[in-house]
Protein backbone atom coordinates (compact mmCIF):
# COMPACT_ATOMS: atom_id res chain seq x y z
CA UNK A 1 0.00 0.00 0.00
CA UNK A 2 2.83 2.33 0.82
CA UNK A 3 4.73 1.41 -2.35
CA UNK A 4 4.69 4.10 -5.00
CA UNK A 5 3.21 3.07 -8.33
CA UNK A 6 5.75 3.12 -11.21
CA UNK A 7 4.58 6.29 -12.92
CA UNK A 8 1.63 7.75 -11.06
CA UNK A 9 -0.06 10.93 -12.02
CA UNK A 10 0.91 13.80 -9.74
CA UNK A 11 -2.41 13.91 -7.99
CA UNK A 12 -2.54 10.25 -7.09
CA UNK A 13 1.01 10.51 -5.85
CA UNK A 14 0.09 13.39 -3.62
CA UNK A 15 -2.96 11.58 -2.37
CA UNK A 16 -0.87 8.52 -1.66
CA UNK A 17 1.62 10.56 0.37
CA UNK A 18 -1.19 12.09 2.37
CA UNK A 19 -2.64 8.68 3.07
CA UNK A 20 0.74 7.24 3.99
CA UNK A 21 1.54 10.22 6.19
CA UNK A 22 -1.64 9.95 8.21
CA UNK A 23 -1.37 6.17 8.38
CA UNK A 24 2.10 6.48 9.91
CA UNK A 25 0.92 9.20 12.27
CA UNK A 26 -2.28 7.50 13.38
CA UNK A 27 -1.01 5.68 16.50
CA UNK A 28 0.91 8.67 17.82
CA UNK A 29 -2.04 10.96 17.11
CA UNK A 30 -4.12 8.85 19.47
CA UNK A 31 -1.31 9.11 22.03
CA UNK A 32 -0.45 12.78 21.65
CA UNK A 33 -3.83 14.28 20.83
CA UNK A 34 -5.91 11.81 22.85
CA UNK A 35 -3.76 11.30 25.93
CA UNK A 36 -1.87 14.60 26.18
CA UNK A 37 -3.75 17.41 24.46
CA UNK A 38 -7.32 16.32 25.17
CA UNK A 39 -6.66 15.85 28.92
CA UNK A 40 -5.48 19.46 29.14
CA UNK A 41 -8.81 20.62 27.76
CA UNK A 42 -10.73 18.13 29.89
CA UNK A 43 -9.00 19.22 33.09
CA UNK A 44 -10.15 22.78 32.43
CA UNK A 45 -13.73 21.56 31.95
CA UNK A 46 -13.50 19.40 35.08
CA UNK A 47 -12.41 22.40 37.11
CA UNK A 48 -15.83 23.95 36.43
CA UNK A 49 -17.64 21.00 37.97
CA UNK A 50 -18.41 19.72 41.41
CA UNK A 51 -17.23 16.18 40.62
CA UNK A 52 -16.96 13.79 43.53
CA UNK A 53 -16.44 10.07 43.22
CA UNK A 54 -19.97 8.69 43.40
CA UNK A 55 -22.15 11.79 43.19
CA UNK A 56 -23.49 13.10 39.86
CA UNK A 57 -21.18 15.82 38.49
CA UNK A 58 -22.70 19.25 38.72
CA UNK A 59 -21.70 22.37 36.77
CA UNK A 60 -20.77 25.11 39.22
CA UNK A 61 -18.97 27.66 37.02
CA UNK A 62 -16.06 29.34 38.76
CA UNK A 63 -17.01 28.28 42.28
CA UNK A 64 -13.96 25.99 42.54
CA UNK A 65 -11.71 28.92 41.64
CA UNK A 66 -13.34 31.14 44.26
CA UNK A 67 -12.78 28.41 46.84
CA UNK A 68 -9.20 27.99 45.60
CA UNK A 69 -8.23 31.59 46.21
CA UNK A 70 -9.51 31.49 49.76
CA UNK A 71 -7.96 28.10 50.53
CA UNK A 72 -5.00 28.45 52.87
CA UNK A 73 -3.85 24.88 52.13
CA UNK A 74 -3.51 25.67 48.42
CA UNK A 75 -1.58 28.88 49.05
CA UNK A 76 0.64 27.07 51.48
CA UNK A 77 1.36 24.23 49.06
CA UNK A 78 2.30 26.62 46.27
CA UNK A 79 4.60 28.53 48.61
CA UNK A 80 6.18 25.24 49.66
CA UNK A 81 6.57 24.26 45.99
CA UNK A 82 8.18 27.61 45.26
CA UNK A 83 10.59 27.11 48.15
CA UNK A 84 11.50 23.67 46.79
CA UNK A 85 12.06 25.08 43.28
CA UNK A 86 14.16 27.92 44.68
CA UNK A 87 16.50 25.48 46.41
CA UNK A 88 16.63 22.85 43.65
CA UNK A 89 17.07 24.98 40.55
CA UNK A 90 19.99 27.22 41.60
CA UNK A 91 21.57 24.33 43.52
CA UNK A 92 21.45 21.92 40.59
CA UNK A 93 22.44 24.53 38.01
CA UNK A 94 25.45 25.92 39.86
CA UNK A 95 26.73 22.52 40.95
CA UNK A 96 26.34 21.04 37.48
CA UNK A 97 28.14 23.99 35.88
CA UNK A 98 31.04 23.65 38.32
CA UNK A 99 31.20 19.91 37.67
CA UNK A 100 31.18 20.52 33.91
CA UNK A 101 34.11 22.93 34.18
CA UNK A 102 35.93 20.27 36.16
CA UNK A 103 35.25 17.31 33.88
CA UNK A 104 35.99 19.41 30.79
CA UNK A 105 39.68 19.23 31.70
CA UNK A 106 41.79 16.75 29.81
CA UNK A 107 42.83 14.32 32.50
CA UNK A 108 43.42 10.60 32.45
CA UNK A 109 40.41 8.45 33.25
CA UNK A 110 38.06 11.41 32.88
CA UNK A 111 35.40 9.42 31.04
CA UNK A 112 35.01 7.15 34.09
CA UNK A 113 34.59 10.10 36.41
CA UNK A 114 31.96 11.55 34.07
CA UNK A 115 30.09 8.25 33.98
CA UNK A 116 30.13 7.85 37.76
CA UNK A 117 28.73 11.35 38.23
CA UNK A 118 25.81 10.64 35.88
CA UNK A 119 24.71 7.44 37.63
CA UNK A 120 22.35 9.06 40.19
CA UNK A 121 20.21 10.39 37.33
CA UNK A 122 18.90 6.93 36.44
CA UNK A 123 18.03 5.91 39.99
CA UNK A 124 14.36 5.08 40.55
CA UNK A 125 13.16 8.12 42.57
CA UNK A 126 11.02 6.05 44.93
CA UNK A 127 13.87 3.67 45.77
CA UNK A 128 16.23 6.57 46.03
CA UNK A 129 13.90 8.41 48.41
CA UNK A 130 13.86 5.38 50.69
CA UNK A 131 17.65 5.10 50.58
CA UNK A 132 18.01 8.76 51.54
CA UNK A 133 15.40 8.41 54.27
CA UNK A 134 17.68 5.74 55.72
CA UNK A 135 20.72 8.00 55.34
CA UNK A 136 18.83 10.82 57.09
CA UNK A 137 17.53 8.52 59.85
CA UNK A 138 18.04 10.44 63.11
CA UNK A 139 19.24 7.49 65.20
CA UNK A 140 21.16 5.04 63.05
CA UNK A 141 21.39 6.87 59.71
CA UNK A 142 24.75 7.44 58.05
CA UNK A 143 24.77 11.23 58.40
CA UNK A 144 24.11 11.36 62.12
CA UNK A 145 26.42 8.41 62.83
CA UNK A 146 29.12 10.26 60.90
CA UNK A 147 28.47 13.47 62.81
CA UNK A 148 28.56 11.42 66.00
CA UNK A 149 32.23 10.61 65.36
CA UNK A 150 32.96 14.30 65.90
CA UNK A 151 30.71 14.43 68.94
CA UNK A 152 27.97 16.29 67.09
CA UNK A 153 24.40 15.36 67.91
CA UNK A 154 22.73 15.40 64.48
CA UNK A 155 19.16 16.68 64.12
CA UNK A 156 16.07 14.68 63.09
CA UNK A 157 16.38 15.80 59.49
CA UNK A 158 13.09 14.64 58.01
CA UNK A 159 10.87 15.16 61.03
CA UNK A 160 11.90 18.76 61.58
CA UNK A 161 9.64 21.20 59.76
CA UNK A 162 12.63 23.47 59.28
CA UNK A 163 15.04 20.89 57.84
CA UNK A 164 12.70 18.51 56.01
CA UNK A 165 12.39 20.63 52.87
CA UNK A 166 16.11 21.40 52.41
CA UNK A 167 16.84 17.69 52.99
CA UNK A 168 14.34 16.58 50.35
CA UNK A 169 15.65 19.24 47.95
CA UNK A 170 19.23 18.06 48.55
CA UNK A 171 18.21 14.66 47.19
CA UNK A 172 16.95 16.31 43.99
CA UNK A 173 20.24 18.16 43.60
CA UNK A 174 22.17 14.95 44.26
CA UNK A 175 20.16 13.13 41.60
CA UNK A 176 20.34 15.69 38.81
CA UNK A 177 23.63 17.60 39.16
CA UNK A 178 25.62 14.99 37.21
CA UNK A 179 22.99 14.68 34.51
CA UNK A 180 22.82 18.43 33.88
CA UNK A 181 26.59 18.52 33.93
CA UNK A 182 26.47 16.67 30.58
CA UNK A 183 24.57 19.52 28.93
CA UNK A 184 27.02 22.13 30.20
CA UNK A 185 29.87 19.89 29.12
CA UNK A 186 28.45 19.70 25.59
CA UNK A 187 28.07 23.50 25.67
CA UNK A 188 31.67 23.98 26.80
CA UNK A 189 32.96 21.69 24.09
CA UNK A 190 31.17 23.77 21.46
CA UNK A 191 33.21 26.83 22.36
CA UNK A 192 36.14 27.17 19.95
CA UNK A 193 39.53 26.71 21.66
CA UNK A 194 40.82 29.73 19.75
CA UNK A 195 38.82 31.99 22.06
CA UNK A 196 40.68 30.67 25.08
CA UNK A 197 44.01 31.24 23.36
CA UNK A 198 43.03 34.74 22.30
CA UNK A 199 42.01 35.81 25.77
CA UNK A 200 45.10 34.33 27.42
CA UNK A 201 47.23 36.24 24.90
CA UNK A 202 45.41 39.35 26.05
CA UNK A 203 46.42 38.42 29.57
CA UNK A 204 42.97 37.56 30.90
CA UNK A 205 42.87 35.48 34.06
CA UNK A 206 40.90 32.21 33.96
CA UNK A 207 38.20 33.77 36.14
CA UNK A 208 37.89 36.81 33.91
CA UNK A 209 37.81 34.52 30.88
CA UNK A 210 35.00 32.51 32.42
CA UNK A 211 32.78 35.49 33.19
CA UNK A 212 33.39 37.48 30.02
CA UNK A 213 33.70 34.69 27.43
CA UNK A 214 32.63 31.24 28.60
CA UNK A 215 29.53 32.10 30.60
CA UNK A 216 27.88 34.31 27.95
CA UNK A 217 28.51 31.59 25.36
CA UNK A 218 26.82 29.01 27.59
CA UNK A 219 23.57 30.97 27.67
CA UNK A 220 21.58 28.65 25.39
CA UNK A 221 22.65 25.68 27.53
CA UNK A 222 21.83 27.59 30.68
CA UNK A 223 18.34 28.35 29.38
CA UNK A 224 17.76 24.68 28.57
CA UNK A 225 19.01 23.50 31.97
CA UNK A 226 16.99 26.13 33.85
CA UNK A 227 13.76 25.43 32.00
CA UNK A 228 13.90 21.65 32.29
CA UNK A 229 14.80 21.87 35.98
CA UNK A 230 12.09 24.41 36.80
CA UNK A 231 9.44 22.31 35.05
CA UNK A 232 10.74 19.14 36.72
CA UNK A 233 10.97 20.47 40.24
CA UNK A 234 7.53 22.10 40.10
CA UNK A 235 6.21 18.55 39.73
CA UNK A 236 8.19 16.90 42.53
CA UNK A 237 6.29 13.98 43.95
CA UNK A 238 7.99 10.56 44.09
CA UNK A 239 10.78 11.26 46.58
CA UNK A 240 8.52 13.37 48.77
CA UNK A 241 5.86 10.64 48.75
CA UNK A 242 8.24 8.14 50.33
CA UNK A 243 10.47 10.46 52.39
CA UNK A 244 8.05 12.73 54.23
CA UNK A 245 4.52 12.14 52.86
CA UNK A 246 4.15 15.91 52.82
CA UNK A 247 5.07 16.23 56.48
CA UNK A 248 6.01 16.93 59.16
CA UNK A 249 2.73 18.82 59.46
CA UNK A 250 2.35 20.14 55.93
CA UNK A 251 5.88 21.50 55.60
CA UNK A 252 6.71 19.48 52.47
CA UNK A 253 3.22 19.27 51.00
CA UNK A 254 4.06 20.40 47.47
CA UNK A 255 1.36 21.12 44.87
CA UNK A 256 1.52 17.72 43.17
CA UNK A 257 1.11 15.99 46.51
CA UNK A 258 -1.93 18.13 47.30
CA UNK A 259 -3.48 17.33 43.90
CA UNK A 260 -2.88 13.62 44.44
CA UNK A 261 -4.38 13.85 47.91
CA UNK A 262 -7.51 15.73 46.78
CA UNK A 263 -8.10 13.50 43.76
CA UNK A 264 -7.15 10.01 44.85
CA UNK A 265 -7.59 10.01 48.61
CA UNK A 266 -10.52 12.42 48.98
CA UNK A 267 -11.87 11.69 45.47
CA UNK A 268 -12.72 15.33 44.85
CA UNK A 269 -11.84 15.34 41.14
CA UNK A 270 -13.34 18.75 40.39
CA UNK A 271 -11.38 20.64 43.00
CA UNK A 272 -8.19 18.67 42.33
CA UNK A 273 -8.54 19.63 38.64
CA UNK A 274 -8.78 23.28 39.64
CA UNK A 275 -5.49 23.02 41.53
CA UNK A 276 -3.96 21.25 38.49
CA UNK A 277 -5.01 24.12 36.24
CA UNK A 278 -3.39 26.59 38.63
CA UNK A 279 -0.17 24.54 38.70
CA UNK A 280 -0.13 24.37 34.90
CA UNK A 281 -0.55 28.14 34.66
CA UNK A 282 2.24 28.72 37.16
CA UNK A 283 4.59 26.38 35.25
CA UNK A 284 3.70 28.09 31.95
CA UNK A 285 4.37 31.55 33.37
CA UNK A 286 7.68 30.41 34.86
CA UNK A 287 8.74 28.88 31.53
CA UNK A 288 7.65 31.77 29.34
CA UNK A 289 9.29 34.36 31.56
CA UNK A 290 12.61 32.52 31.34
CA UNK A 291 12.35 32.46 27.54
CA UNK A 292 11.48 36.15 27.54
CA UNK A 293 14.39 37.00 29.81
CA UNK A 294 16.90 35.14 27.67
CA UNK A 295 15.38 36.41 24.44
CA UNK A 296 16.26 39.98 25.33
CA UNK A 297 19.92 39.09 25.62
CA UNK A 298 22.32 38.32 22.84
CA UNK A 299 23.17 34.71 22.24
CA UNK A 300 26.04 33.41 20.19
CA UNK A 301 26.11 30.39 17.96
CA UNK A 302 29.24 28.75 16.62
CA UNK A 303 27.75 25.70 15.01
Amino acid at each position, binding site marked *: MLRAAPRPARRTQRRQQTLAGYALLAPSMVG*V*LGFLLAPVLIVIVLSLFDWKLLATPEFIGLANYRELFGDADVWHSFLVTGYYVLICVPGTTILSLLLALLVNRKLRGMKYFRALLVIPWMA*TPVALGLVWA*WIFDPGRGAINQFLGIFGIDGPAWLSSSLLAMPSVAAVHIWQFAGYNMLFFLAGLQNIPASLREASSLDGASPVAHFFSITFPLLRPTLLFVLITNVIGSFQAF*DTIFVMTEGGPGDSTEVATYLIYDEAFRKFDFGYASTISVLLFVVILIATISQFAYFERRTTYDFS
Partner: protein
Amino acid sequence: MTRSRLFAYGVLVIGCVFAIFPYLLTVLTAFKGPGQLSGTLPWEPGLPPSGAAFDRLFASGFGGYLANTVLVTVGITAGQLLFAVLAAYAFARLSFPGRDALFWVYLSTLMVPPVVTMIPLYLMMQKAGLVDTWAGLMLPTMLGTPYAIFLLRQFFRTIPADLEDAARIDGAGRVRTLLLIVLPLSKPILVTVTTLAVVANWNSFLWPLIITSSEDKRLLSVGIALFKGEIGVDYNAVMAGSLIALAPLLVLFIFFQRFIVRSVAVTGLK
Protein backbone atom coordinates in the same frame (compact mmCIF):
# COMPACT_ATOMS: atom_id res chain seq x y z
CA MET B 1 51.75 15.89 38.65
CA THR B 2 50.96 19.55 38.98
CA ARG B 3 49.16 20.95 41.96
CA SER B 4 46.07 21.99 40.01
CA ARG B 5 45.81 18.49 38.56
CA LEU B 6 46.04 16.93 41.99
CA PHE B 7 43.35 19.30 43.20
CA ALA B 8 41.10 18.38 40.25
CA TYR B 9 41.50 14.67 40.95
CA GLY B 10 40.77 15.24 44.63
CA VAL B 11 37.51 17.05 43.90
CA LEU B 12 36.54 14.44 41.30
CA VAL B 13 37.07 11.58 43.72
CA ILE B 14 35.02 13.31 46.43
CA GLY B 15 32.24 14.05 43.92
CA CYS B 16 32.16 10.46 42.71
CA VAL B 17 32.11 9.12 46.27
CA PHE B 18 29.09 11.34 46.92
CA ALA B 19 27.40 10.06 43.78
CA ILE B 20 28.01 6.40 44.57
CA PHE B 21 27.71 6.39 48.36
CA PRO B 22 23.90 5.88 48.54
CA TYR B 23 24.23 2.88 46.20
CA LEU B 24 26.98 1.43 48.35
CA LEU B 25 24.90 1.91 51.47
CA THR B 26 21.94 0.20 49.81
CA VAL B 27 24.03 -2.86 49.00
CA LEU B 28 25.58 -2.99 52.47
CA THR B 29 22.26 -2.62 54.28
CA ALA B 30 20.39 -5.05 52.04
CA PHE B 31 22.81 -7.86 52.89
CA LYS B 32 22.79 -7.33 56.66
CA GLY B 33 20.91 -9.63 58.98
CA PRO B 34 18.46 -8.19 61.54
CA GLY B 35 21.02 -8.20 64.36
CA GLN B 36 23.78 -6.80 62.18
CA LEU B 37 21.86 -3.63 61.38
CA SER B 38 22.04 -2.29 64.90
CA GLY B 39 25.43 -3.89 65.59
CA THR B 40 27.34 -2.20 62.76
CA LEU B 41 27.83 1.32 61.49
CA PRO B 42 25.89 2.06 58.26
CA TRP B 43 29.02 2.01 56.09
CA GLU B 44 30.38 -1.21 57.59
CA PRO B 45 29.56 -4.51 55.89
CA GLY B 46 27.57 -7.09 57.86
CA LEU B 47 29.65 -10.24 58.09
CA PRO B 48 28.79 -12.85 57.08
CA PRO B 49 26.39 -11.39 54.49
CA SER B 50 22.78 -12.40 55.02
CA GLY B 51 20.11 -12.93 52.36
CA ALA B 52 17.31 -12.90 54.93
CA ALA B 53 15.93 -9.56 53.75
CA PHE B 54 15.60 -10.87 50.18
CA ASP B 55 13.85 -14.00 51.40
CA ARG B 56 11.30 -11.86 53.19
CA LEU B 57 10.81 -9.69 50.09
CA PHE B 58 10.31 -12.52 47.67
CA ALA B 59 7.96 -14.21 50.13
CA SER B 60 5.76 -11.12 49.97
CA GLY B 61 5.51 -11.09 46.17
CA PHE B 62 8.48 -9.05 44.97
CA GLY B 63 9.37 -11.59 42.31
CA GLY B 64 6.06 -10.82 40.63
CA TYR B 65 6.59 -7.04 40.86
CA LEU B 66 10.00 -7.43 39.26
CA ALA B 67 8.61 -9.52 36.39
CA ASN B 68 5.76 -7.02 35.90
CA THR B 69 8.18 -4.09 35.79
CA VAL B 70 10.41 -5.79 33.23
CA LEU B 71 7.48 -6.69 30.99
CA VAL B 72 5.80 -3.29 31.25
CA THR B 73 9.08 -1.44 30.63
CA VAL B 74 9.88 -3.57 27.58
CA GLY B 75 6.31 -3.30 26.26
CA ILE B 76 5.97 0.46 26.63
CA THR B 77 9.49 1.13 25.33
CA ALA B 78 8.95 -1.06 22.26
CA GLY B 79 5.66 0.69 21.52
CA GLN B 80 7.16 4.16 22.00
CA LEU B 81 10.05 3.36 19.68
CA LEU B 82 7.90 1.84 16.94
CA PHE B 83 5.24 4.56 16.89
CA ALA B 84 7.72 7.40 17.35
CA VAL B 85 9.82 6.16 14.43
CA LEU B 86 6.75 5.97 12.18
CA ALA B 87 5.56 9.43 13.18
CA ALA B 88 9.02 10.98 12.92
CA TYR B 89 9.50 9.49 9.47
CA ALA B 90 6.21 10.94 8.28
CA PHE B 91 7.12 14.37 9.64
CA ALA B 92 10.64 14.26 8.21
CA ARG B 93 10.08 12.74 4.78
CA LEU B 94 6.50 12.89 3.55
CA SER B 95 4.70 15.99 2.49
CA PHE B 96 0.99 16.21 3.06
CA PRO B 97 -1.50 18.91 4.02
CA GLY B 98 -1.56 19.73 7.74
CA ARG B 99 1.87 18.27 8.41
CA ASP B 100 3.54 21.36 9.81
CA ALA B 101 0.54 22.43 11.87
CA LEU B 102 0.33 18.97 13.35
CA PHE B 103 4.05 18.98 14.15
CA TRP B 104 3.61 22.22 16.08
CA VAL B 105 0.73 20.72 18.02
CA TYR B 106 2.97 17.76 18.92
CA LEU B 107 5.76 20.12 20.01
CA SER B 108 3.42 22.16 22.16
CA THR B 109 2.43 19.06 24.13
CA LEU B 110 6.05 18.83 25.31
CA MET B 111 5.07 21.48 27.85
CA VAL B 112 2.20 19.50 29.34
CA PRO B 113 3.15 18.22 32.81
CA PRO B 114 1.97 14.67 33.62
CA VAL B 115 0.41 15.96 36.86
CA VAL B 116 -2.06 17.99 34.84
CA THR B 117 -3.18 15.08 32.67
CA MET B 118 -3.44 12.44 35.38
CA ILE B 119 -6.98 13.19 36.59
CA PRO B 120 -8.59 13.35 33.11
CA LEU B 121 -6.63 10.26 32.05
CA TYR B 122 -7.86 8.38 35.10
CA LEU B 123 -11.48 9.36 34.40
CA MET B 124 -11.05 8.41 30.72
CA MET B 125 -9.74 4.99 31.74
CA GLN B 126 -12.60 4.64 34.19
CA LYS B 127 -15.14 5.36 31.44
CA ALA B 128 -13.42 2.79 29.22
CA GLY B 129 -13.37 0.23 32.02
CA LEU B 130 -9.57 0.11 31.98
CA VAL B 131 -8.79 0.96 35.61
CA ASP B 132 -6.54 -1.71 37.10
CA THR B 133 -5.80 -3.34 33.74
CA TRP B 134 -2.56 -3.74 31.79
CA ALA B 135 -4.04 -1.68 28.97
CA GLY B 136 -4.85 1.18 31.33
CA LEU B 137 -1.34 1.05 32.73
CA MET B 138 0.46 1.05 29.38
CA LEU B 139 -1.79 2.75 26.83
CA PRO B 140 -1.32 6.44 27.72
CA THR B 141 2.44 6.41 27.10
CA MET B 142 3.11 3.55 24.69
CA LEU B 143 1.81 5.25 21.52
CA GLY B 144 4.86 7.49 21.26
CA THR B 145 6.06 10.53 23.20
CA PRO B 146 6.39 13.95 21.56
CA TYR B 147 9.98 14.24 22.77
CA ALA B 148 11.07 10.99 21.08
CA ILE B 149 9.23 11.99 17.89
CA PHE B 150 10.95 15.37 17.94
CA LEU B 151 14.46 13.95 18.45
CA LEU B 152 13.98 11.30 15.75
CA ARG B 153 12.48 13.72 13.25
CA GLN B 154 15.39 16.14 13.67
CA PHE B 155 17.84 13.30 13.08
CA PHE B 156 16.00 11.83 10.08
CA ARG B 157 16.13 15.21 8.40
CA THR B 158 19.93 15.16 8.47
CA ILE B 159 20.03 11.94 6.42
CA PRO B 160 20.47 12.83 2.72
CA ALA B 161 17.26 12.17 0.80
CA ASP B 162 19.33 11.01 -2.20
CA LEU B 163 20.10 7.76 -0.40
CA GLU B 164 16.43 6.96 -0.10
CA ASP B 165 15.65 8.06 -3.64
CA ALA B 166 18.33 5.71 -4.92
CA ALA B 167 16.80 2.82 -2.99
CA ARG B 168 13.35 3.72 -4.27
CA ILE B 169 14.53 3.80 -7.87
CA ASP B 170 15.80 0.29 -7.23
CA GLY B 171 12.23 -0.60 -6.35
CA ALA B 172 12.25 -0.53 -2.54
CA GLY B 173 9.01 0.66 -0.94
CA ARG B 174 8.72 3.18 1.88
CA VAL B 175 8.74 0.57 4.60
CA ARG B 176 11.83 -1.10 3.19
CA THR B 177 13.72 2.19 2.80
CA LEU B 178 12.85 3.03 6.38
CA LEU B 179 14.05 -0.34 7.66
CA LEU B 180 17.11 -0.77 5.45
CA ILE B 181 18.37 2.77 4.88
CA VAL B 182 17.07 5.19 7.49
CA LEU B 183 17.15 3.12 10.69
CA PRO B 184 20.68 1.71 10.31
CA LEU B 185 21.94 5.28 9.84
CA SER B 186 20.06 6.45 12.92
CA LYS B 187 21.67 4.22 15.52
CA PRO B 188 22.98 7.06 17.74
CA ILE B 189 19.60 8.73 18.12
CA LEU B 190 17.86 5.37 18.57
CA VAL B 191 20.21 4.62 21.47
CA THR B 192 19.40 7.99 22.99
CA VAL B 193 15.65 7.62 22.64
CA THR B 194 15.73 4.04 23.96
CA THR B 195 17.83 5.04 26.98
CA LEU B 196 15.52 7.89 27.91
CA ALA B 197 12.46 5.67 27.46
CA VAL B 198 13.82 2.75 29.50
CA VAL B 199 14.83 5.02 32.38
CA ALA B 200 11.50 6.86 32.39
CA ASN B 201 9.39 3.72 32.11
CA TRP B 202 11.32 1.71 34.67
CA ASN B 203 11.17 4.55 37.18
CA SER B 204 7.60 5.68 36.60
CA PHE B 205 5.57 5.79 39.78
CA LEU B 206 2.63 8.20 39.90
CA TRP B 207 0.57 6.70 37.04
CA PRO B 208 1.06 3.05 38.12
CA LEU B 209 0.19 4.09 41.68
CA ILE B 210 -3.10 5.60 40.55
CA ILE B 211 -4.24 3.22 37.85
CA THR B 212 -3.41 -0.18 39.36
CA SER B 213 -4.66 -1.55 42.63
CA SER B 214 -4.47 -5.33 42.46
CA GLU B 215 -1.26 -6.99 43.56
CA ASP B 216 -0.78 -9.07 40.43
CA LYS B 217 -0.32 -5.86 38.38
CA ARG B 218 1.88 -4.05 40.87
CA LEU B 219 5.18 -2.56 39.70
CA LEU B 220 8.40 -2.40 41.71
CA SER B 221 8.22 1.33 42.35
CA VAL B 222 4.71 1.03 43.78
CA GLY B 223 5.65 -2.18 45.59
CA ILE B 224 8.51 -0.65 47.57
CA ALA B 225 6.60 2.54 48.36
CA LEU B 226 3.65 0.58 49.78
CA PHE B 227 5.93 -2.02 51.38
CA LYS B 228 7.44 0.69 53.54
CA GLY B 229 3.99 1.62 54.78
CA GLU B 230 3.17 -2.00 55.63
CA ILE B 231 6.27 -2.99 57.53
CA GLY B 232 7.45 0.34 58.94
CA VAL B 233 11.17 0.92 59.25
CA ASP B 234 12.57 -2.51 58.47
CA TYR B 235 15.56 -0.97 56.73
CA ASN B 236 17.05 -4.31 55.68
CA ALA B 237 14.01 -5.24 53.65
CA VAL B 238 13.40 -1.71 52.36
CA MET B 239 17.01 -1.47 51.15
CA ALA B 240 16.82 -4.93 49.60
CA GLY B 241 13.71 -3.76 47.72
CA SER B 242 15.43 -0.56 46.63
CA LEU B 243 18.41 -2.57 45.44
CA ILE B 244 16.15 -4.72 43.25
CA ALA B 245 14.74 -1.53 41.72
CA LEU B 246 18.10 0.23 41.29
CA ALA B 247 20.32 -2.65 40.17
CA PRO B 248 18.96 -3.44 36.67
CA LEU B 249 19.44 0.10 35.35
CA LEU B 250 22.85 0.23 37.00
CA VAL B 251 23.92 -2.98 35.25
CA LEU B 252 22.63 -1.67 31.92
CA PHE B 253 24.51 1.55 32.54
CA ILE B 254 27.78 -0.25 33.20
CA PHE B 255 27.48 -2.12 29.90
CA PHE B 256 26.35 0.84 27.79
CA GLN B 257 28.06 3.61 29.75
CA ARG B 258 30.01 4.87 26.74
CA PHE B 259 26.92 5.29 24.57
CA ILE B 260 24.68 6.63 27.30
CA VAL B 261 26.95 9.44 28.44
CA ARG B 262 27.44 10.51 24.85
CA SER B 263 23.81 10.15 23.89
CA VAL B 264 22.30 12.07 26.81
CA ALA B 265 24.35 15.08 25.87
CA VAL B 266 22.89 15.26 22.34
CA THR B 267 19.31 15.68 23.56
CA GLY B 268 17.79 19.06 24.12
CA LEU B 269 20.38 21.07 22.27
CA LYS B 270 20.04 21.60 18.56
